[in-house]
């Protein structure tokens, strides 16, 4: 079954190139990627609900990861949705533990290989469906 990813730029952060490149790469890994452009957590979760997203990908290089990232997980859980939430962009490693504690499954920095991200997604989505 095809894995469906909803990919968004978090909040007002305008650095969209990375999110599009990753979307394209996940497409080439055989996934269906719905690209949202810029949205805030509430709207990202609504889109994930409507699209039946297995994965929510959040891209941010603007320093809002600690505020808006956990918010996505929080709203998602409150609405009864259980997608895998991952983040990418420029995020200091010191903040990783806080994000993971908040329910972000994984954070992928600038030099991540796409196979690594795709394999992570495949493994996690598979186990969660089973």
């Amino acid at each position, binding site marked *: 079954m095809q894995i469906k990813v909803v990919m968004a730029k978090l909040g007002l952060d305008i650095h969209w190139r990375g999110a599009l490149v990753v979307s394209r790469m996940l497409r080439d890994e055989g996934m269906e990627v719905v690209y949202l452009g*810029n949205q805030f957590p509430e709207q990202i979760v609504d889109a994930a609900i409507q699209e039946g997203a297995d994965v929510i990908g959040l891209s941010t290089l603007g320093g809002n990861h600690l505020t808006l990232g956990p918010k996505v997980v929080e709203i998602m859980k409150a609405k009864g949705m259980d997608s895998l939430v991952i983040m990418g962009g420029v995020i200091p490693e010191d903040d990783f533990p806080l994000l993971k504690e908040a329910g972000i499954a994984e954070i992928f920095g600038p030099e991540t290989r796409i196979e690594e991200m795709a394999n992570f997604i495949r493994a996690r989505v598979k186990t969660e469906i089973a």
Partner: protein
Amino acid sequence: MVSLSDELIEKFDQKDEVVLGKLLKEVENQTELGFELLKHKAFQKGKAHIVGITGPPGSGKSTLVGKICKSLAQKGLKIGVVCIDPTSPFTKGALLGDRVRMQELAKYPNIFIKSLATRGNLGGLAGSTADVVQVLDAFDKDIILLETVGVGQAEFDVLDISDTVVLVNVPGLGDSLQTLKAGIMEIADLYVINQSDRPGADESVKDLRMMVNESKKEDWKPPILKTIATQQEGVEELIDQIHRHKSFLRNSGQWAKIRQNRHMKRLRGVTNSYITEIVENTMRNDPLIQKRIEEVKRGEIDPFTVSNEIIRHLFQKQLTL
């Protein structure tokens, strides 16, 4: 596997969008649960006005759909949107980008957007489109906007599912001969020249008018509209014409007829895919047939003879599933 519990149905009937999203995913993936839902909701539909929006890639379909939705949402209508983008023939992946053009819709309630990848389907839609539309209809949407992939000259699936077909074109895609060709140019109930601030818009309108005036459609002459979707120009006129076409369908009795045809086509489609599945299964698993297939591969026997044998073999087995 999850089954179609009373609880799910109840939540669906209470317009729980999380449940709708989950069930639509099942329908999209054509799972057993999805089929259960379709059976259960088969008679709870037929109210929504289904508007198909088709046209070449980049003509502004998504932007136009976004603007139409915004206006309808402000009028308090409940709206479903289904947008289709192509699947890669190489990786089976897809990049579904229609939502980017509809970003401002996120703040309106009562708009439910579902993106589908074609997954190998060729007629401009995804295989599950009709079913997804049916579920949105059963969810009490007033209007469902169905946006096809960017099309060329011969993608007509949108006709089978829509009440009103809108063809979105842009100026400068060829001379008047192009408008006279059979195919996509014939199927529309409404023609839109979008991006009409670009040169050649009036010529495009003129060519279309000539084509429409000479067509044999007597009872409904398709209107031709100019829009600039990015600036919301011409969108209200387009909505008026969409409503006018709905009234025409209602008053002329075609509304019911379209639905009858749709049900029949659906029956045919479902039956065909069942048969295809049975045939595929037999070709894969039956040792006798396998042997004959090998002979066809090596060119020792013609495909017509063996095809006949497969069909006869299936009827002897009485097509047991």
